[in-house]
């Protein structure tokens, strides 16, 4: 066993080999271990090491080579979203060069500027827009150089197809001739003119993503496929209950499993082996004894716990008129909505490779925040930031912060202890049980109607786990177990947005009771907070519309002033062939399979993307099963960069959130998470995939907004509203499992009998 004292240094390679009793060179299993050299992976970009990483410099983002091709250094990473083509499209358009001549490097702290995490739908909106401005600055500079060389005024020149040439025709100069392999030495110019969208030739086009052919032929090198020479495979053994202490480890329990050996650092316990299967077998076989902890509230206790606190603060987010007085004066409708703890549930368990030796660390990670991770690794490993380089590689989709950063910390601890590069891939149960979770949300809503059937007063009261202000990272599991100090706190993302109705109402109050903690370690999950908030707000809007006896679309439109909002709402219901009438449907009291429709609307963060979702559903009154037949969505994210990539993001948002709404809740008792695989945490399956109707509104004159999250948000309310329309049952707790739907139907029947 290798025992390393708290925060201790690495054993040397020789000490390691001695300690583990293994001779060097033994146990290389199989001949052709895939070795993807970094240089090969990066297409020779290593030569650029030492370039500026300054995001205020054109050279931070671009290098023009002698052959006229361009390398683009992007701090934002693809994550499966299509940024890998969309950002080069924006750059190519402004520069005036074919997008095929741009190569993109993403999220490499040695090469790319820090543009912040690829999160919060900021990839295009901020990252892409910043790069577009750098490209416009570069293009103006290229035109300036050409003007001098050609002896013509800059105004007579244009940058097209990788060269600067006279507008009137005649020979031009290629970008490579103008500046090939030399630096621009220029600050980004916020005033560099952007091209007129009406003349765009690349932006907006559904240009195919460059990585898809490799992905569908098994050649794309994912984080999980990456290896370096001399690498060990590591697995970390997590405690049997959350917060447990390691009592003892029986090292002998893994004897004979290849050259597997134990690494223990306080309560952190892992195994390493040359062969991955040996590491897995050893992790399973290892006998470790833990203390038994019972500090969790359990999934069934979350709702009560949220009402109980402890709380950190109350915050009023919006106040218009006097909602409390207006509610007190009328007969308010009241309803509570609950959204459960959920997992990111990535298809590929988190993975990282770290080589930490000689006071330096190379980290390969699929983190959505490589620059942030660099600082974290440096802090935890007590290295200067300059000694750490984090390189992004695609992982399985993460949809927020899953276990990738944890896996990197695990690998760093094991690499430091062994003096070898270590690859850690989590097992399925690690990912489901231990990824930081989407936090639970509880919302109490109250509202009244005016005599003419509009919203009179509205109050939203939220109970939410509060993110610790400016917490630099989500506290990571490995370092916590190893006893390494790290900033403790919780991270949830901007989860209190969109608690307000997006419709006219004279009296509105939105407030939040901030909880000090969360039931399980939380992090941001796709569209943080806004999936649940829109579920509550748009379900309650529907409840008010039903109370007013109005068609849900008309009810919304009478209070909606924003023209872009009105347009997506109308276009969405048109896709479904919506016929105006109040909910529930006239057939709601029938037998057998009920059919209904519902819709919901969202203006993301109140100032970004406009989106509405409508759907047609069947509810089996016998089994409680919900089947979505048709799913419609109109989406306005301003200027569309890549029409097909936007569509793919919308489809993904819709289906993933349908899954979260129908099926997903992380189950846990007082000690541990019990949703540890795909049968205890089921997600949407092919037979449940509905017909989809999508309408992407392109607004070339508007700024581009995000498409990575917004369309997720109206899905739960649209579904709940459709179920209500179908059979009169109001679902206010997700997920909408069969059992829950059935129980709600029984409760409704009892209530109706009582009333009758």
């Amino acid at each position: 066993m290798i025992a390393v004292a708290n925060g201790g240094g690495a054993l040397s390679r020789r000490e390691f080999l001695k300690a583990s009793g293994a001779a060097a060179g033994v146990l290389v299993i199989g001949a052709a271990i895939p070795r993807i050299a970094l240089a090969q992976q990066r297409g020779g970009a290593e030569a650029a090491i030492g370039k500026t990483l300054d995001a205020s410099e054109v050279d931070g983002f671009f290098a023009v080579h002698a052959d006229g091709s361009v390398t683009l250094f992007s701090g934002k990473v693809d994550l499966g979203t299509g940024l890998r083509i969309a950002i080069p499209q924006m750059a190519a358009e402004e520069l005036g060069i074919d997008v095929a001549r741009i190569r993109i490097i993403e999220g490499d702290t040695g090469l790319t500027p820090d543009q912040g995490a690829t999160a919060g739908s900021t990839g295009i909106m901020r990252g892409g827009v910043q790069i577009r401005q750098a490209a416009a600055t570069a293009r103006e500079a290229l035109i300036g150089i050409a003007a001098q060389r050609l002896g013509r005024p800059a105004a007579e020149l244009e940058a097209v197809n990788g060269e600067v040439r006279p507008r009137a025709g005649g020979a031009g100069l290629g970008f490579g001739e103008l500046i090939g392999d030399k630096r621009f030495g220029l600050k980004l110019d916020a005033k560099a003119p952007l091209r007129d969208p009406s003349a765009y030739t690349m932006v907006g086009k559904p240009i195919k993503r460059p990585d898809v052919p490799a992905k569908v032929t098994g050649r794309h090198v994912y984080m999980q496929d990456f290896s370096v020479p001399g690498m060990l495979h590591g697995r970390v053994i997590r405690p049997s209950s959350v917060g447990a202490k390691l009592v003892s480890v029986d090292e002998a329990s893994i004897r004979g499993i290849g050259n597997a050996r134990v690494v223990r650092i306080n309560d952190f316990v892992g195994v390493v082996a040359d062969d991955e299967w040996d590491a897995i077998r050893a992790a399973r076989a290892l006998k470790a004894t833990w203390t038994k902890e019972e500090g969790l509230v359990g999934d069934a206790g979350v709702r009560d716990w949220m009402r109980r606190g402890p709380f950190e603060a109350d915050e009023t987010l919006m106040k218009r008129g006097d909602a409390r007085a207006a509610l007190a004066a009328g007969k308010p409708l009241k309803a509570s909505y609950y959204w459960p703890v959920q997992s990111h549930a990535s298809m590929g368990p988190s993975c990282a490779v770290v080589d930490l030796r000689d006071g330096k660390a190379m980290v390969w990670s699929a983190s959505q925040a490589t620059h942030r991770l660099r600082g974290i690794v440096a802090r935890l490993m007590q290295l200067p930031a300059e000694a750490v380089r984090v390189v992004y590689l695609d992982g399985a989709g993460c949809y927020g912060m899953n276990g990738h950063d944890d896996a990197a910390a695990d690998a760093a601890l094991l690499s430091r202890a062994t003096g070898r590069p270590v690859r850690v891939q989590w097992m399925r149960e690690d990912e489901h049980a231990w990824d930081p979770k989407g936090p639970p949300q509880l919302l109490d809503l109250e509202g009244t109607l005016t005599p003419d059937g509009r919203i009179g007063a509205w109050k939203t009261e939220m109970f939410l786990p509060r993110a610790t202000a400016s917490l630099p990272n989500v506290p990571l599991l490995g370092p916590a177990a190893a006893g390494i100090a790290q900033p403790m706190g919780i991270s949830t993302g901007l989860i209190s947005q969109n608690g307000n109705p997006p419709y006219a109402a004279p009296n509105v109050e939105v407030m939040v009771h901030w909880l000090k903690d969360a039931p399980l370690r939380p992090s941001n999950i796709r569209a943080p907070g806004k999936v649940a908030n829109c579920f509550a707000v748009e379900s309650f809007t529907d409840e008010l519309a039903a109370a007013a006896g109005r068609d849900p679309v008309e009810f919304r439109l009478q209070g909606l002033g924003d023209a872009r909002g009105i347009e997506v709402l109308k276009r969405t219901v048109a896709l479904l062939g919506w016929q105006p009438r109040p909910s529930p449907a006239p057939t709601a009291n029938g037998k057998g399979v009920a059919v209904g429709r519902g819709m919901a609307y969202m203006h993301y963060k109140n100032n970004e993307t406009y989106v509405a979702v409508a759907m047609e559903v069947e509810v089996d009154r016998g089994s409680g099963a919900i089947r979505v037949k048709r799913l419609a969505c109109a989406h306005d994210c301003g200027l569309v960069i890549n029409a097909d990539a936007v569509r793919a993001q919308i489809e993904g948002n819709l289906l993933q959130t349908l899954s979260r709404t129908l099926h997903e809740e992380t189950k846990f008792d007082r000690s541990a998470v019990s949703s540890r695989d795909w049968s205890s945490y089921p997600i949407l399956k092919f037979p449940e995939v509905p017909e989809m109707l999508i309408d992407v509104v392109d607004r070339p004159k508007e700024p581009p907004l995000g498409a990575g999250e917004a369309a997720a948000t109206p899905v739960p309310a649209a579904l709940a509203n459709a179920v209500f329309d179908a059979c009169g049952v109001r679902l206010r707790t997700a997920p909408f499992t069969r059992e829950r739907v059935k129980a709600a139907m029984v409760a409704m029947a009892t209530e109706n009998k009582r009333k009758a």
Partner: protein
Amino acid sequence: MPTYRLSVNGESRSVTVSDPKQPLLYVLRNSLGLTGAKYGCGLGQCGACTVHIGGKAVRSCLVPVSSVGAKRITTIEGLGTPEAPHPVQAAFIAEQAAQCGYCVNGMVMTSAALLAQKPRATLGECKAALAGNLCRCGTQHRIERAVMRVSQGAGSKA
């Protein structure tokens, strides 16, 4: 340590493993450098590890290497290349049927096995065949379109 001779993508390959129960998935990925098949769950629940054995789509995470024998293994790498993709792969490219693409190995391999059996598979048959393949990104709709593109084009090409 036992050594096995495997037939992989038309080639005979010899592998030595420390445990005869080692799942084929790890042998393919680590010993043979064929990383197209992915580890998703190791439990037969997700399909990310799918390969063809004797023409059938199977979960390589559940197949002990010692049980394969002389049966022919085809991995996604053996199905086609970026330059010369298999018709199913070409259809996935045409429909851009991958977001993160971690599931796509299983989607391509399962669809290819289905279409080899039933070249004109219907949408219902496609959904049923893929019911055990999970995708977290929500790419299912594109995957269905890719499969239908092949099955509906099958008549004209045959």
